């Protein structure tokens, strides 16, 4: 769906993107991760043709990115807003027309969406008279009104209350089921693990990891095991800080150069091994670890 090759962009002396390659397959939810200022917004703006890159290529559906592709993308920026004095209906119509829909098409689509999200009664209200959650729904519909095959959502959940965030999350999954490719830029990792098929992480203008969630998780394994011992035969070494609960001791241990079997053998000498499980890091931990390691390296 989207292919990016050796993309570079700098603002004066500041590099915003350095040789970034990305490959987003069709019909996936793609998580674009990275701390603030990493270059995510710059990358998204280039895909949306808001700014030009210094060098590198962007392909959309196999074609080099061009102005005619504007209608293929739905973009919900992190910094977003609506005309406060405009009515819901007029506003949606305006955004839909700007994306190239004919007035007839636009009206039918808006009507369907308003019905779907139970908002018909709001259509003649001005944005300033709506609650924040309602305004956000209007914003979301405006983003997807033209059925874009590629949807770019920059921090889509920021500012949403939990109820509306849930509605939006379900809409995203529904769109994905219909074949829409979604790029989700966020630093909220719980939504990444829940929604994304693929991720890429950007830090300090460079892409540092990408792949499926499973692949990314396999890159960074801290090799720490969670252990529970019962029927203790002898005293545990003092450096194993453990928690005792009715005779069973729980603690974590790193491999420290041993193989898992060697560690298991050692543990068996102290008692009955009830639990021996590798700790898989969450995306959050990977994120923090990767950011730190690129900053130190």
């Amino acid at each position, binding site marked *: 769906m989207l292919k990016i090759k050796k993309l570079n962009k700098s603002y004066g002396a500041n590099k915003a993107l350095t040789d970034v390659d990305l490959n987003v397959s069709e019909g996936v939810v793609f998580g674009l991760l990275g701390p603030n200022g990493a270059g995510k917004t710059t990358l998204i*703006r280039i895909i949306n043709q*808001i*700014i030009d890159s210094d060098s590198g290529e962007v392909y959309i559906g196999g074609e080099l990115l061009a102005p005619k592709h*504007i209608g293929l993308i739905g973009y919900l920026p992190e*910094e977003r*807003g609506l*005309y406060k004095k*405009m009515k819901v209906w007029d506003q949606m119509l*305006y*955004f839909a027309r700007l994306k190239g829909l004919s007035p007839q098409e636009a009206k039918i689509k808006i009507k369907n969406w308003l019905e779907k999200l139970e908002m018909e009664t709001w259509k003649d209200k001005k944005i300033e008279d709506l609650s924040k959650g309602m305004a956000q729904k209007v914003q979301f519909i405006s983003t997807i009104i033209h059925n874009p095959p590629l949807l770019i959502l920059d921090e889509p959940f920021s500012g949403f209350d939990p109820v509306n965030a849930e509605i939006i999350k379900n809409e995203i999954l529904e769109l994905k089921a219909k074949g829409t490719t979604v790029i989700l830029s966020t630093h909220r990792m719980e939504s990444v693990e829940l929604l994304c098929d693929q991720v890429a992480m950007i830090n300090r203008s460079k892409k540092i990891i990408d792949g499926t969630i499973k692949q990314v998780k396999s890159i960074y394994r801290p090799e720490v095991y969670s252990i529970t011992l019962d029927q203790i035969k002898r005293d545990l070494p003092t450096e194993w800080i453990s928690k005792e609960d009715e005779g069973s001791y729980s603690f974590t241990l790193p491999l420290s150069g041993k193989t898992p079997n060697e560690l298991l053998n050692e543990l068996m000498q102290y008692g009955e091994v009830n639990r021996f499980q590798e700790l898989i890091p969450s995306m959050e931990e990977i994120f923090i670890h990767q950011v730190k390691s690129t900053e130190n390296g």
Partner: protein
Amino acid sequence: MDKIWLVIQREYVARVKKKSFLLVTLLTPLIFPAIMGIFVWIALEEDDNQALRIIEVVDDNKLFFLESSEQYAFSFSDINSDEAKKLVQDGDRYGFLHIPKFDIKDPQGISFYGEENPSMSLVSYLENNLRKKIEEQRLFESGIDPKIINEVRTKVAIKSITLDEEGTETVSNATVNYAIGFVAGILIYMFIFIYGNQIMQGVIEEKSSRIVEILVSSLKPFQLMLGKIIGIAGVGLTQLLIWIVLVGTLTTLVTGFLGMQMPQQQAMEMANPELAQSMAQNSEMGDILLVLAGINYVQITLSFVFYFLGGYLLYGALFAAIGSAVDAPSDAQQFMLPVTIPLIVAYMGLFVFVLNDPTSTTSFWLSVVPLTSPIAMMGRVSYGVPFWELALSMGLLIVGFLFTTWVAGKIYRIGILMHGTKPSYKTLWKWIKTNN
């Protein structure tokens, strides 16, 4: 192009639909005459209510008698100047006019004492009266009866006629030309300021409410800027049109009510100069009719529309650029100066140079330089401007607004995406130089 049209439509409809637009459009033609009416009324009331001011006159020549007016009464009570000064100090007299003994051929040393500075009108009233008295006295002394002078006084009025190369004669009147230039210049000045500000506010609104990032993902910033400028121009033209119709109807109603000749009738007469000529014997009304008939309305209207739009586009782009560079209207102040100064120069130039001497070198330059020409040229057009000057001025204005729009576009496309930074002139210059 379709997208610019959408933006134009939105900007236009959003503004025209507002209640405030309707209110301003309908009330302004009523408010200005109303304010003027109130001023006149207050002035009249004030004149009526003012206490009579008594001025003591000490005339050492025993020659002058000043007639009292509604505001000032003159008292001649044969006291000396020290006593008179005392009267002023005590507040018994508003002022004291001292006329020392002087040679009638060279009157010197006349002075006015008062507790406060006398107004201009009082001083000139006194001066005129004394001058008249002295002149009469001198005429009398040379043996001429002042009555004869009054009898031989004649009124002379010059009818000025412009003669063009083909020999067509047109009656002109500096006052009428002045009035046309004056009104047209002020209208353009106000329009640029009011609607330029609306552009700026609109841009700041889109920027600060973060709509702009969504918009620029659908169309080019330049399209957005141009659409806004043109849409707001449409609002202004609509307003102007409504005003013309309203003022026309109002004048017709008022003059009709006052039993005067209806302007429409005049207009019909104007359309037919021969008829106007036959009507216009030697009366002053006839002269003015003749002048009105001689004005090239088509040229004036066309130039007005051209400079109206040209000036607006030139400055509108700059206002858009300022709006894009700042986060809030209060930050815009620092960039307003370079925009307001040429406008004020043009406005002052209109009164000081152009209307008084439309063909002077200063007037020429003011009406040719694009930043001042929209206002200054309108002051000249009604007097008649050589074709090449008009063409040069219009050409330069077109070049001017293409240039400002280009510069503004460069600032705008970067500015609208910048938040939280207060740009300086240096950063603006950097933006202009950046190629995306």
